[in-house]
């Protein structure tokens, strides 16, 4: 993925949200559905179940497209959260209640520059994970594929999350501000 790709996926998802554009949806499906299927297989599903659930995830992407906020997440990150929730249902894991969502104000359209920087930081994170020492990288993968309990997760992940967190924090502050 490049930054241009990140922005491209966000634009395609906006077309799905704004005018139920099936061509844009098909492009998103072509890229993300096989990746979600692979992620679910690595999380313990067999191929048939993973394929069925990957389709469910993409249906949810279609339905919830208007709720995606490109100043807080990449499309891949947003789809990860949907796939994670589908996996919890699929494997009958513990229920995972969600925090009260921050509402969108009337003028809460994400800023173009915020979106660009966030996509850039998401891209940097992919590189940072690839460059981690193997032991740490495997720990993180096992945690996200559901193989580790919270007490088995290392206290220090070694991941540079400071910048992306600051950008998300800024986007949250703008959202709060636009509501008050």
């Amino acid at each position, binding site marked *: 993925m490049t930054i241009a790709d990140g922005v491209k996926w966000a634009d395609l998802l906006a077309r799905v949200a704004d005018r139920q554009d099936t061509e844009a949806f098909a492009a998103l499906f072509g890229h993300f*559905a096989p990746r979600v299927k692979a992620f679910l297989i690595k999380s313990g599903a067999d191929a048939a179940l993973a*394929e069925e659930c990957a389709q469910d995830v993409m249906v949810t992407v279609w339905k919830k497209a208007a709720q995606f906020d490109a100043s807080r997440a990449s499309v891949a990150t947003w789809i990860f*959260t949907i796939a994670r929730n589908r996996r919890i249902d699929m494997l009958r894991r513990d229920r995972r*209640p969600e925090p009260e969502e921050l509402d969108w104000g009337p003028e809460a359209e994400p800023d173009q520059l915020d979106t660009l920087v966030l996509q850039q930081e*998401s891209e940097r994170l992919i590189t940072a994970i690839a460059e981690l020492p193997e032991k740490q990288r495997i720990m993180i993968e096992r945690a996200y594929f*559901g193989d580790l309990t919270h007490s088995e997760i290392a206290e220090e992940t070694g991941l540079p999350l400071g910048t992306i*967190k600051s950008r998300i924090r800024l986007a949250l502050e703008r959202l709060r501000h636009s509501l008050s």
Partner: protein
Amino acid sequence: MITHHLNDQLLMAYSAGTLPEAFNLVVATHIAICDECRARLESFDAIGGALIEESLGDAPEQLGSDALAQTLARIKTSTPEPRKRAAAQPPRDRVLPEPLRSYLGGGVDSINWRPVGGGVKQAILPTSENATARMLFIPAGAAVPDHGHAGMELTLVLQGAFADGHDRFARGDIEIADEDLHHQPMAEPGLDCICLAATDAPLRFRGLLPRLAQPFLQI
């Protein structure tokens, strides 16, 4: 001003979706009132996004040839959900944010308290058995019986404040206690203290009486 936050282990496990339900409830309720931890959580979600993006590796996972057609057929009959708007939301509870309010079926008035001694009250919440979640009511100025932990205990303050001899915890603060910590939380004078707490093992009380009473109190 929240000064005690979630740690990286809990945020990563919540992001990955592998915590016991009782812990998920405490983490989600803290994030509902702590924008700093909400931003940290969303940065942990970004790790999940990176793993999705890179999940194909060297062996591309093929979908069935009619997968797109099947999915397109399904979305034709589905209704897109609108963007959430502030005006459409019901008024918020000042003490109990979501998702906690839904677990309790209402506000503080709807909690079915049971006395546990010394004016302290609790109410066990319905969660999976991997860990236990409870609401705690500590009258202003009162103490919770001295206890240590076999596992991990999370305590989130929702009203009032308590001090445990190490630190002070007020609304939004979360205390993460493990087996090394023996403490005796004491509510501050003023407001009664209301907390949401979760443990993944039974508490160990130091005195003889509370230990005998433990099976009956489910504490």
